Structures are given as structure tokens and as C-alpha cells.
């Protein structure tokens, strides 16, 4: 009749004194094949995005009207040096994909981070304070949901002009209401938990409760939302490009390449296919790694 301990598994994550390299090796070991694939893809995408200027065989904006609409390697009329073919202005699709990837990743990451901080912060405040503050913030959320975001984006870009900074801002605002709703819901649930009351009884301040007790417990849904948000932002950016209010040509983003290449789908599908595959890979890697990250940050699921 002893108060027996539950079995405790000691795992790599619990042991201190690991080097970064050993840590990486540990991560690799415990990943399954699909996570390893996602890791590999993510690593490759990151490297070619960061080193796009070195990797790209041509300038992304260099036109060569003689070699317009040339197909990728392995097809008829393939032109040496243009691995993935050329677009309607004779620009190298590969180079544009690489630069586009760079810009898209940067935009999506910044946008998702802004949304996270903005929406998450408002949701946290809303959930903890409640009352009038809660009503106002949730009212804004409802309004945001009711109005199509494309409309808001159009308005913002029309008023502020479509510079890259405004674009980041627009993408950042996108999705904030989802963060806010998720965070508020989780916070309100957590506020009812005895361990929050225990913290209050111990004398903890509001800030301590928010950052030490609540935030770590809402990381999981936030990570999931973040990954979804990144994929959505990539798509939104392509929508805006398609409408002609996104990042302005000739600057390449993956979304704008798909949007503009659409016109040439029947005759030159590679213009669309190459960036579309890139988008696919980005979202795939982000989603898989996001799920995995969510499981890893949850101490209850660790070492299982």
C-alpha cells in the first residue's frame, strides 16, 4: 500500500549539459521518417532562400525576350542555363523561384509573428482582465471576422500605398483575430484552474501569472495556429499579387509568380508549377514541424 511513483522516463530533453550539435543529433534520432523529411526540406529551403543570390544562376529580373517561354530541362526547346525554363518575359524561373522563396518566407514569418504578438497579446489581456476590456476586444474580433479580409487589405494598401512595409503590416494584421480568440479561450479556461488560484494564494502578481503560468500552457494551440497562419499568409500574399495590389513587379514572390503565371497555364505550365511546388513544400515542412514542435514543448508528451 505504498504511494508508488509512476514510472519516470529520463529522456534527452530533460538532461542538462547538451551541446547544440548533440541536441540536433538527438532530435534527428527521435524523429520519424516524415518528420525527418520535413526537417530536410526545411533545411534545404532555408539554405537556398538565404543564399539565393549565390545560388541563382541569373538575376531574377534579367529579361531575355529571345528566350521567352522556354520549358525546363528535359523538354523540347530547352535552353541551356535555364534549368526550370523561362517565363513570359524570358526571366529565369529558377532564379525567380529562389528570390521569391526568400521574400515569401520573410514576409510570411514576419506576418505570422506580428499576428501572433498582436492577437496573442490582445487575447491574453482580454482573457485575464475580462469585463469591458474583454467586450471591446472580442467585439473587434467579431468585426474582423465579419468583414472579408481582402477588403481590409485592399483598403489599407490603397490608403498607404503598396510598399513592402505596408505589405508586411497587412499580412501581420491578417489572422490576428484567430490568435486572439484561441488565446482568450485558453486563458479563460486556465484562469479557472486551481493552480492559477494556487499562484494567487502564493502572492503572485498578475504579470507573473500571465507569463509564468498561463503562457507556457497555451504554447501548443499557438504553435498550431502559427503554422496554419504561415500557410494562409503565403496564400493571401498570392491572392493580393493576383489582384495586382501585392508586392509590385518585377519583384518576385512565390505567390505573385503563381498569380501571374496563371495566364500561361495551358502553354507554359512550368511558370506556375515551379513556384506552386515551392509553396507546397513550405507549407508541408511548416505544418509537420509545427505539430512536432507542439508535441515537444508539451512536457506531458515528452519522452513517450
Amino acid at each position, binding site marked *: *500500500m505504498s*504511494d*508508488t*511513483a*509512476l514510472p*519516470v522516463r529520463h529522456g534527452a530533453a*530533460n538532461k542538462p549539459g547538451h551541446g547544440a550539435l548533440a541536441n540536433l543529433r538527438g532530435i534527428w534520432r527521435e524523429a520519424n521518417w516524415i518528420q525527418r523529411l520535413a526537417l530536410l526540406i526545411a533545411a534545404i529551403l532555408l539554405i537556398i532562400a538565404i543564399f539565393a543570390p549565390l545560388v541563382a544562376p541569373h538575376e531574377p529580373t534579367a529579361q531575355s525576350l529571345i528566350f521567352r517561354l522556354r520549358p525546363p530541362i528535359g523538354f523540347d526547346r530547352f535552353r541551356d542555363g535555364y534549368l526550370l525554363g523561362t517565363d513570359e518575359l524570358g526571366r529565369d524561373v529558377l532564379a525567380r523561384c529562389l528570390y521569391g522563396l526568400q521574400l515569401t518566407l520573410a514576409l510570411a514569418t514576419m506576418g505570422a509573428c506580428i499576428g501572433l504578438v498582436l492577437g496573442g497579446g490582445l487575447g491574453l489581456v482580454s482573457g485575464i482582465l475580462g469585463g469591458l476590456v474583454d467586450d471591446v476586444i472580442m467585439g473587434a474580433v467579431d468585426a474582423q471576422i465579419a468583414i472579408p479580409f481582402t477588403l481590409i487589405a485592399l483598403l489599407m494598401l490603397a490608403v498607404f500605398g503598396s510598399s513592402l512595409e505596408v505589405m508586411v503590416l497587412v499580412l501581420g494584421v491578417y489572422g490576428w483575430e484567430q490568435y486572439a480568440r484561441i488565446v482568450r479561450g485558453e486563458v479563460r479556461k486556465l484562469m479557472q*484552474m*486551481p*493552480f492559477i*488560484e*494556487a*499562484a*494567487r*494564494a*502564493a*502572492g*503572485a*502578481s498578475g504579470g*507573473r501569472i500571465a507569463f*509564468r*503560468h498561463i503562457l*507556457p*500552457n497555451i504554447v501548443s494551440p499557438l504553435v498550431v495556429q502559427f503554422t496554419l497562419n504561415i500557410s494562409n499568409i503565403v496564400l493571401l500574399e498570392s491572392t493580393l499579387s493576383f489582384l495586382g495590389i501585392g508586392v509590385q513587379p518585377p519583384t518576385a514572390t512565390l505567390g505573385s509568380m503563381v498569380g501571374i503565371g496563371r495566364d500561361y497555364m495551358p502553354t507554359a505550365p512550368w511558370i506556375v508549377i515551379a513556384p506552386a511546388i515551392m509553396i507546397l513544400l513550405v507549407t508541408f515542412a511548416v505544418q509537420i514541424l509545427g505539430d512536432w514542435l507542439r508535441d515537444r514543448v508539451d*512536457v*506531458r508528451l515528452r519522452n513517450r
Partner: protein
Amino acid sequence: MSDLLSVKNLHVAFGSNEAVSDLSFDVPARRTLALVGESGSGKSATALSILRLIEREGGTITGGSIMLNDGDGTVDITALDEQGLQRLRGNRISMVFQEPMTSLNPVLTIGDQMSEVFIRHRNMTKREAYDASRQALDSVRIPEAARRVEQYPHELSGGLRQRVMIAMALACRPKLLIADEPSTALDVTTQAEILDLLRDLQAEIGMAVLFITHDMGVVAEIADRVVVLRHGRKVEDANVETLFAAPKAAYSRQLMAATPKLGSGSPAAPPPRGNILEVSGMTTRFKMRGRMFSGHGATVDAVKNVSLVLGKGETLGLVGESGCGKSTLARSVLRLIEPASGTIALDGNDVTNLGREGLRGLRRHAQMVFQDPYASLNPRLAVHELVTEPARIHNLVSSCDQRELAAELVRSVGLEEDVIDRFAHQFSGGQRQRLCIARAMSVKPKLIVADEPVSALDVSIARQVTDLMLELQQREQVSFLFISHDIAVVERVSQRIAVMYAGEIVETGPAQSILNDPRHPYTRQLLASVPRPDPARRRRLGHANPAAPSAPVPRAGTVLFEAAPGHFVREDAA
């Protein structure tokens, strides 16, 4: 006498974990068999296996047979198909569950839910089924049965809901009733009523009862035969008198020793050294949610004009049933809920009107331990962060000494030092409650308010935790305000007891004086309802009917009257 149900060599497994191994027992017709064991002993798995509900919970019966012989022929339940099971369940065997609050569908009326049973098993029309439901409610002594069929579950109290569950289970006059901890979630007075009711109905219907419980007191009250389970194995199978007179298995003896018994004595009073806590005239008020256009909502006084004192190094046990305001009182004392009026003094300092900074000081000296050890520890923090948190909030420890302090704290509550890098989910309930106590002790408080600290734990673990609290009190001279619905547990730890009823303290005084000479009718009722772990002294109050609130709801503002030295009771009852 033939056996109604024979379980032979039953094996039940959840994945690769064997929950029940090689269990055999028989339930004689018209008798009550109690399956006793602590959490994880496999008693619920056994019950669910008999109805073959175990598959739904992810378990499988991996061996053995369950034979039902109720006169309509013998069937092996383990071999039945889904159709056969549906004819069996609710008809020949039915079950009452532990949690009356969640076992009823909240969006259907009582009548709708009950008539379903009749329509299904008795092929009645809707109208007939409603009439039958009304009669069934009558038969479980529910007052105003005609009105109840129109009501929704939330309109009934826990005791009434459990009666509805019993009425539904007995609707088809089953030969076997499986009762899985049917009274555990109820107040002790309600529990006594439900146990009496079950006994009466058993005689009326002539059914056998398989009663599952962890409480040896309840076993002594209701069982004819007892099977003691531990880790899925049978450790003892005996008649109830034999078991209580001379338990054979060591585990049965341990279990009985750990069961709190009324009248087993209280700790000696510490030398008087002044009071740590003085509360006078405290009232805590809740606003009811107002209706949309009615302006201000009504208010409810959860705690009414309560005064109490707690000496240094002393434990005051606060007893009362659920909803009597004892948890609100505890939180008001620590000002986690703001009292509406009255004064609170901690160690001679008035803390009633302290501002934010002052409150931090209060919490440096008064800590709290909560009921649910699973939910009161932040799942994301390692133990060394958890138990030292109050100390860090009050800057009593630097971050480099934190691990040392944590090690010292976990040692002082009887855990190994190397647990400090683990997380809460890696501990059992009792260990978690130890961690909660360690956390409270980290600031060396003068007062710990413990709100039902052992209610969620098995009896043996509860015993260890109360022993730990007594030991800490001896060593550190800390005072406890110990809140519980279980007066036997309260007796074990408290020098003085306060009985709370409907938001007021109706009787308070030295523990033994209260227990041996209860003055207030509610205290008497409470003491009479406590199940005694002694089958020879079965309480028979004949109150299978729900008690009308037998104790008068106290009028506000009555003062306490000294009935014996230090023993106060409300004037209207004296």
C-alpha cells in the same frame, strides 16, 4: 442458494497492462457483494466487464467467463453479441454510476430520459412510459414525482439525481444491480439516505447488488460478502462479519487501519501561545447574475457573520457539507475572495483592508493547499520551480539557491531529492499533494489553509498525507485551518472543530467535546450519518427518504452560546 453471477478467472487488459488478473467471485441472489479496493485496483474494470462496457473504455476481456444465471437461463456474458448485450443491459443487469452530475443528459427532462428505458425494454407507448416513470420516481422516494418528470437534471440536487439514476437502473426490475461508488460524490448525510434506499429496494425487488467502493465504512454498512482487490488481484474474499472481525490478508488489515474511524482520538492541544488567526463577523456575498432587464441581480450570502479563532500551532477542523460555504470561508480568510464585511486578523495584524502590497505580505505568512492535486500544480513547471515558487515571489531565495531549497522541501515532505527535475504529471496523487504541501511550506508560513486536502486521495494515501501534516505541525509549529466534509478525517488532525451549516458556524469547540456531546441538531445528524466500519453496529436510521432540512436554517445574527468550556453552539439550538 444458487449464485446469480459467477465470475471465473477473469482477465481484463488495457493494451499490454493487465487491469484484472485471474479474478473469481460469485454474487449470490438477493445478496450484496462489495468489491473493495483503492484506485487502480481494477474494481471498476471488473464492473464494466460484467456489462461488457469495458470495450468502450479501450479494454478487452482476455480470459475467463462471466456466467449470469437468473432463472431465464444461463448465459456467458463474455460470449454475447451486441444484440444480446443490449437485451441484457438495463434489463437483467443495470448499473448506477458514481457521478450523478454527469450521468444524466442535461438537455432532456427527467421524464424523457426515464421513459426511454421503458419504451426500449418494455415496449410501452410514450404515455405509458411517462406514467411508469412517475411510479419509478415514487418508488425511490422522490418527493413530488409528478413535478420531477417535467424537470431538467440541473434543477435537482445531487442526492435526487442519484435517486433518479437508481430509479432508471431499477426500471426493469433487474436481477443484478451494479453500483459503482454510487454515494462517493455525495455528502455524508445524503450518502446515508442513498445507502438506506438501496437496502430497502433490494429487499423489495429481490435483486442482488454488486457494490463497488473504496470506503470500508460503506462496506460495513451494506455488504453481505466482501471481495478485496489490489492491483487487479483478489486478496481476500470473506463474509463481512468475518472480514471485519479477523481480516486474513495483510492488505485488508492495512486498508482497515487506514480508514478513518470516528472516536479514534484527536491530537493533544498545543500550549496556548495566543492566536494566529482571528476572524470576526465575516460575511461573504456573491452577486447572482441578474436577468436581462431586472436591474440589479440578487445577492447570496455564502458565508454569514462567521467568527472563529485559531491558536498558534493548532489545527481547526472545519466540517460541513458541499455548498455550506466552507471553501468560500477559506478563500475569504486569505482574501482570495473579498469578504463583504467583518474583520480578519493574522497574528494580531488586521488584514481586512490591506492593499495590493499588504496582501503580498499576508500571503507570505498564510498559504493554501487545494483539494485537487492534479489541477493545482502547473503542468509546465519542473518540481524545483513549482515548490519554490512562493519563496521566489517573496524574494526569500535567490535563483542559485533555488534547487537546494527545493531539495530540502521535497525531503521534508518525504520524497526523494532527485524528483526535483520531474514534472507534476509524473507523480501519483498522493505525491502531488505532498508537493503542494511542500510548496506551501516554502515560505515557512504561520498558517496553512487546507481545503479538502485529502478528499481526492485513497484512504491509505490520505492517511499518509494527514500524518505528514501532523508531523509538520509538530516540527514547524504551523497552524492549519483544515477543511473537510469527512468528520472522521477532521477528528484525526484537529484539536478543535467548527461545524458549518448554511453559511454559518453552528457549533465549535474542542474536538472531543463536539464529537461526544454534540449540541446542535445538524451536528448530531452529521455524526449519525457517518458510516461505521463495523458491521455489528449497522446504523439503521430508516431515513431512506430524503431528509427535509432537519436542522433549521439558521436565522442570521444569532450568537453562539457557551454550552461547555470552550464549546460554543448557536443559541437557538442550545
